């Protein structure tokens, strides 16, 4: 027989033993799970899924009709090819293999020659429009996209996106005769109807202070002089894309889609265009080709409705009679049909003050938009037939062409270009990347702030709503970010799934966001984005003398006078070359301002650093130099105060090669 004390003690021992057993079992279970993950690469390596067979899609991105309207030429950026579609049979009847990643197309005035910009080859391919044989390849600047010939067909103007310039090509010799400096990231060009001007739409706004609204530029080239005639300020907007010009009888306006961000406001209210809106710049040109900027009248109209956005305007076209203008919304799978006469009435009847207000009014669309027609996924370019009866829309993510009947303003058919049927994980992710439907009121897609396959819009955003106006942070490019976690400017997101899953849903899309499988696909696509060949680095990879000196400076461990540098003063400590030049830590480099709630920021990767400023967490450094000339007074961002100007130059030359 046991005593009550002995019973209590016994119970206590059994309780303790039970707890110990549970604890041991928990530890054992955790250990087993850990071992299982380590031995299962598929489960452990979430960021490196088993490679799937490469599927080559077409991804139509630019269109050109033959003068007789019987042939539709389709540039397919993912297949390095141009297809020919017979518009009567609506079948693909030809194909030409061009350079890498073709993006744009132009046709000679007589219709006998096609010119295709090969973005990744820094070249233009000339094709015989009848035989579809390749005639020659013409060298141009960095990453060409938009191109157009002059009225005589003797000169070709090519917009070089990465070079911020336009190559002027003499087509008789096939050589570049001059380079004209455009705005930032000139993408699309158009020849004026009278042939006197070439308009250049720049994707990015001018570099400027991050606390000021963006100002974009439409560059005007005088074709007679082949010089820049004017640089038009289009205020408050960015991502100017294709250009359509109405005939003079319809007002002669230029119509250019844009995006109007509200990045300087804390992003607390998304509805009614609270984050950004989408519309068109309506520009009445100067009457003379040599007209100055002040001779142009610039208005901005929104195409969004008060309860729905039409995200990421891309293509622009007008029917020959000028009655209708077509604007594709590449994030919303819609083409808006604008009644040009109503548009003109709206502008003519508006005072100058009211015209200014129109840039922020969401009631314009119901006055000027006659119809919104559905397209395939990610509609890009749009063209109209010479007789105005038909319009064609390239659907990049579907490998199809939408055919519109303009008399009835409705879709008639969808032309299947014959792309692969199966959707790879990356393709699914790519489709999601361009799709604004996951966002509240369809206001934005990933591509909205990361246009041109992962570029940064170059803006600082007030994303962190709890702090209301604090922690305004610069956008980043998405190139080569796999393996650079954590993410977010404070390093709080451990992986991209967190970044694009809950964070995007809660703070950006203000919706349920993506499903887990969709997040997985999206991450797969984003990780597939890379800068491509860096033009600052020689093709053979050899560094120039200046770049070599800069490399030595980057890796130096002593000052100019021979004193040793502490590890924190050395560049590779925080920007390790082993992991995309980021050591994946957060560190205080002395750049925090009174508007920041933290002082230690996530170290960005340096690969692709040259891809469009500005720099630092808040975008205050407009150029690379300023990181050290203006924002490193205490040598907290590496010891650089002992460097002379030539050394700083060399260091920057090296950084540009990464």
């Amino acid at each position, binding site marked *: 027989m046991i005593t009550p004390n002995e019973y209590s003690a016994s119970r206590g021992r059994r309780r303790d033993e039970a707890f110990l057993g549970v604890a041991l079992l928990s530890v054992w279970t955790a250990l087993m799970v850990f071992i299982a993950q380590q031995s299962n690469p598929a489960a452990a390596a979430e960021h490196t899924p088993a490679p799937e067979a490469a599927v080559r899609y077409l991804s139509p991105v630019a269109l050109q009709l033959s003068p007789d309207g019987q042939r539709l030429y389709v540039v397919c950026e993912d297949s390095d090819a141009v297809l020919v579609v017979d518009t009567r049979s609506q079948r693909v009847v030809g194909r030409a293999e061009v350079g890498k990643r073709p993006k744009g197309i132009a046709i000679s005035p007589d219709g006998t020659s096609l010119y295709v910009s090969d973005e990744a080859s820094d070249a233009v391919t000339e094709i015989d429009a009848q035989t579809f044989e390749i005639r020659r390849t013409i060298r141009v600047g960095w990453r060409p996209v938009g191109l157009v010939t002059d009225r005589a067909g003797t000169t070709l103007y090519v917009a070089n996106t990465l070079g911020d310039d336009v190559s002027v090509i003499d087509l008789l010799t096939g050589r570049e005769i001059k380079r004209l400096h455009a705005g930032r990231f000139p993408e699309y060009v158009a020849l004026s109807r009278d042939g006197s001007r070439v308009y250049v739409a720049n994707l990015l706004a001018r570099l400027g202070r991050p606390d000021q609204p963006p100002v974009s530029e439409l560059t005007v080239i005088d074709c007679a002089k082949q010089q*820049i005639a004017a640089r038009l300020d289009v205020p408050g907007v960015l991502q100017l894309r294709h250009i359509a010009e109405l005939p003079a009888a319809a007002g002669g306006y230029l119509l250019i889609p844009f995006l109007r961000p509200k990045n300087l406001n804390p992003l607390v209210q998304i509805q009614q265009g609270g984050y950004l809106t989408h519309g068109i710049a309506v520009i009445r040109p100067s009457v003379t080709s040599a007209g100055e900027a002040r001779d142009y009248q610039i208005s901005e109209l929104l195409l969004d409705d008060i309860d729905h956005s039409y995200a990421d305007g891309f293509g622009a076209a007008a029917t020959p009679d000028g009655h209708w203008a077509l604007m594709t919304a590449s994030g919303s799978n819609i083409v808006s049909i604008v009644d040009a006469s109503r548009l003109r009435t709206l502008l003519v009847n508006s005072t100058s003050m009211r015209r200014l207000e129109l840039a922020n009014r969401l009631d314009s669309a119901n006055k000027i938009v006659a119809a919104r027609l559905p397209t395939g996924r990610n509609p890009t370019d749009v063209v109209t037939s010479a007789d105005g009866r038909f319009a064609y829309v390239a659907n990049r993510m579907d490998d199809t062409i939408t055919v519109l009947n303009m008399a009835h303003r409705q879709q008639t058919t969808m032309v299947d270009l014959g792309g692969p049927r199966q959707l790879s994980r990356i393709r699914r992710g790519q489709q999601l990347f361009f799709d604004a439907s996951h966002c509240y009121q369809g206001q934005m897609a990933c591509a909205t702030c990361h246009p041109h396959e992962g570029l940064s819009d170059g803006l600082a955003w007030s994303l962190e709503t709890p702090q209301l106006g604090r922690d305004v942070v610069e956008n980043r490019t998405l190139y080569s970010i796999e393996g650079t976690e954590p993410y977010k400017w404070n390093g709080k997101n451990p992986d991209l799934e967190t970044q694009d899953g809950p964070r995007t849903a809660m703070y950006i899309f203000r919706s349920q966001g993506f499903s887990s499988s969709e997040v997985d696909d999206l991450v797969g696509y984003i990780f597939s984005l890379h800068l491509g060949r860096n033009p600052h680095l020689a093709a053979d990879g050899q560094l120039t003398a200046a770049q070599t000196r800069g490399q030595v400076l980057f890796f130096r461990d002593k000052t100019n006078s021979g004193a040793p540098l502490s590890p924190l003063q050395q560049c590779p400590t925080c920007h390790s070359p082993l992991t995309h030049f980021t050591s994946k830590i957060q560190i205080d480099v002395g750049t925090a301002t009174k508007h920041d709630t933290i002082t230690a920021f996530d170290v960005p990767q340096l690969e692709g650093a040259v891809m469009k400023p500005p720099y630092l967490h808040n975008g205050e450094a407009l150029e690379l130099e300023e990181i050290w000339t203006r924002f490193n007074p205490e040598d907290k961002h590496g010891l650089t105060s002992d460097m*002379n100007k030539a050394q700083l130059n060399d260091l920057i030359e090296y950084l540009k090669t990464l």
Partner: protein
Amino acid sequence: MNVKTITSVLRGALLSVGLSLAALPCVLAQAPVPNRDVQATLYTKWINYTATNGFPEGEVYCVTVDGSRVWAGTSHGLVLLEDGRVKKVFSTDDGLAGRAVMSIAVDKQNGDVWVGTFGGLSLYSGGAFKNYTNLTSGLANDLVYGVAMQGQFLWVATAAGVNRLDTNTGTWSIFNETNAPFNEPWAYGISVAQQKVYFAVWGGGVLAYDLAKETWKPFTDPDGEQELVLYRNQGLIHNIVSSVSYNPDTKTFWASTYFGLSGYDGRNWHNYLTKDSGLASNFINAVRSRGDNVWASTQSGLSQLDTRTNTWTTYSRDQKTGRGEILITHADGSKQRVVSETAMAHSYILNTDFQGDDIWVATAQGLSHGIHAQPKE
């Protein structure tokens, strides 16, 4: 005197006369008869742009002609003249990098205008300015004295060395005492030849950069700092060089210094001082050479040297009467004076450029347009 002696003397005299007659063409060629009738080729008609007709006050540091357009750099901004009138005055309010404009270069290919100021480098293109400073770009220093285009490259002379900007790639290169024979860092002027670029360095002579070999060659005063001209034409006349001008016609570069004028044709130096030439002053702000002529912008007038005839023509202004004074110094030393009803705005000359046969002159108190008159029948 016997016959033999007389014959001998007569033979000698005849020989002397014969030799003299044979040498006469050479003598005549070396010492041309001064052409007194030069009035028809002089600049006797001047139009001035000063504060009274829309031009900014103060000094005009440089002038650059671009077809029918004339750009002038002043102490108070950049001026554009077109069709004989001031079209626009640009200041820092318009986006110009600095108020004082020291140099201007026009890219003939694309029409861009590069402007060197004391606040950085400005690019004027399509009606808008874009600026480059020491803090925001690879520019060596914000005190920009000279700019010059060479194909796609822009050369920039600054107070801390020389830059070369590849306008296609955006790559900046710096040349200073660390990688070039700059005894002093102050680069004042630039002149572009086909395969070389010449730099005027204040206190450092002239530096020539060979584009193909990527090498430098200095030209300095053999007197060093003694400021003695021991032998005429022994070398660069002085190391304080204010500007340099390469003449492709004569394959000679000319250097203006604060102590005289030098020219080098690849073999020989040609130096000029006031004491033995028609040069108005040894203090020369700029030099420009084209054809057979060399134009020296001095503190006491504009001196033109015709290298064929070795004739100097100096233009100045009589500040009392406002008339122009033209002093012609011939090769034989004789002088000729001509008075013109109109004159340049001031006798302190800073720079020149040409518009056809007309001349544009930057002075201390305005810009002057010298209209070339047709020669009289």
